[in-house]
């Protein structure tokens, strides 16, 4: 039975068999679920379509059903169209896509969690932007998603992937690691480079706490998605430039787990600490609670 316990085993298996990461991930899922490989590719194609849809819908989503964040993707798109932004064209789109998907999630839109809903904008933004610029087809995108799934699975086997257990590093951090590896895969990098990029991306976000204002997946979650998406592309390029991750991916994940354990409960999705405990956040929270009580009556 093929297992995805850790990156090291997966890399060793790749070297021993000559199989690619996407191929090994498909084999793993096929053994686990009993589904033939063709069905697994088909399901991943469907996930890709959901991601593309969530970008498109998110770019037009005014955020009517969100509590605090309204039309973030839409605002970026309009500003880009009007030439009001200072960043480069690619960075503008990465930011725009990440905000669009995360905004759509906050507005009760349909998204593909990756690895969680709170971090659902990171991978689509980084991967779809780079794919557009490189002219990559859906087949290459599905392979990149499979690689991302492999990274996420070995992360989940060794550490937390929820804000309540590990803080934002376990959500946006792992999402960024998955996105960095996916971008390297799309660019034709080696399996080692994939996990180096994943490790660097996660290292950059270690310690990030989960402190959502008023308990909503909006502030600062939506803009952090954009940060983690940009970080993924930076990590991928650093590795392609030959900058080493130094700490292997598995050890970075275990460090993330340890940091999550050391985090007080107030910084793990309880909205009792961090930004959520700021006076502005408390004011917003009180206002929302009053509105909620009115709703109940």
């Amino acid at each position, binding site marked *: 039975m093929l297992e995805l316990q850790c990156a090291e085993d997966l890399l060793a298996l790749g070297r021993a068999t000559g199989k690619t990461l996407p191929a090994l991930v498909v084999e793993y899922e096929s053994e686990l679920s009993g589904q033939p490989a063709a069905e697994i590719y088909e399901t991943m194609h469907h996930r890709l379509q959901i991601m593309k849809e969530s970008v498109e819908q998110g770019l037009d989503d005014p955020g009517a059903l969100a509590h605090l964040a309204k039309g973030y993707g839409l605002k970026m798109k309009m500003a880009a169209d009007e030439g009001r932004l200072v960043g480069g064209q690619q960075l503008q789109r990465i930011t725009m896509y990440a905000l669009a998907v995360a905004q759509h999630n906050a507005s009760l839109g349909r*998204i*593909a*969690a990756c*690895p969680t809903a709170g971090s659902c904008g990171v991978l689509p933004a980084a991967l779809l932007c780079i794919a557009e610029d490189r002219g990559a087809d859906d087949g290459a995108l599905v392979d990149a998603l499979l690689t991302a799934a492999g990274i996420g699975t070995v992360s989940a086997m060794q550490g937390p*992937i929820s804000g309540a257990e590990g803080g934002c590093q376990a959500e946006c951090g792992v999402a960024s690691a*998955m996105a960095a590896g996916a971008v390297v895969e799309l660019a034709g990098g080696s399996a080692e480079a994939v996990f180096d990029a994943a490790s660097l991306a996660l290292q950059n976000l270690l310690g990030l706490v989960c402190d959502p204002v008023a308990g909503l997946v909006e502030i600062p979650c939506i803009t952090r998605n954009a940060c983690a998406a940009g970080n993924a592309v930076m990590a991928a390029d650093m590795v392609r430039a030959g900058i080493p991750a130094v700490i292997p991916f598995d050890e970075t994940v275990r460090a993330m787990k340890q940091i999550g354990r050391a985090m007080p409960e107030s910084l793990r999705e309880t909205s009792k600490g961090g930004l959520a405990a700021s006076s502005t956040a408390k004011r917003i929270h009180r206002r929302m609670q009053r509105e909620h009580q009115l709703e109940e009556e």
Partner: protein
Amino acid sequence: MSQIGIFDIVGPVMVGPSSSHTAGAVRLGYAGRQILGEPVRRADIHLHGSFAATYWGHRTDIALLAGLLGMAMDDAAIPGAKKLCCDHGLAYQFHRADLGDVHPNSVRLQLQGESSHADVQGASVGGGRAAIHRLDGFAIQCDGTYATLISRHKDEPGVISEITRVLGEMNINIAFMEVSRRRRGLDAMLVAQTDDPLNSRVIQWVTGLRGVRQVWCLPRF
């Protein structure tokens, strides 16, 4: 530790905003509905830890109710679950609770239907995955990866072998099995996770066995 499927990592496809507090909560509610085996008429919902602290913001309440109504996590009707509860005659009450040293995203569902009741405790363990940890006072492990047969029976020799014999005769393979009891000779529970789906015939057959008091068959959730 059990394995994690790749589509729980790149996925699930769900209605936002939170995989642990919305999608996982829909799954927990759905599991509760399946365990009860009939439409829920009354639900007392005890929220623990992070669930208790942030339920309204993450719409955990709406998600649990959607699941109790039998919805899946990508159902576009989820936002309207509270109104649907009124329409379907499901009365509910939320409570803040301390369930002890359990996962921070835990909930206890005390459910009543027309003819039966169930006391289910579980947790949303991340990425939209959910696990049931207690059923009617028994500690169990069930994460919906497999179809699951649960029997409550008299603690005496031969009951378990009879249950596994019936499953064998129906060509149902057991992937994982766990047995526990409250007191020797009294109340015992068996949880069998199976590779093959379980139908109503399984419930009939196993319910008819000597010593068996109650049987639940859960689909994958």
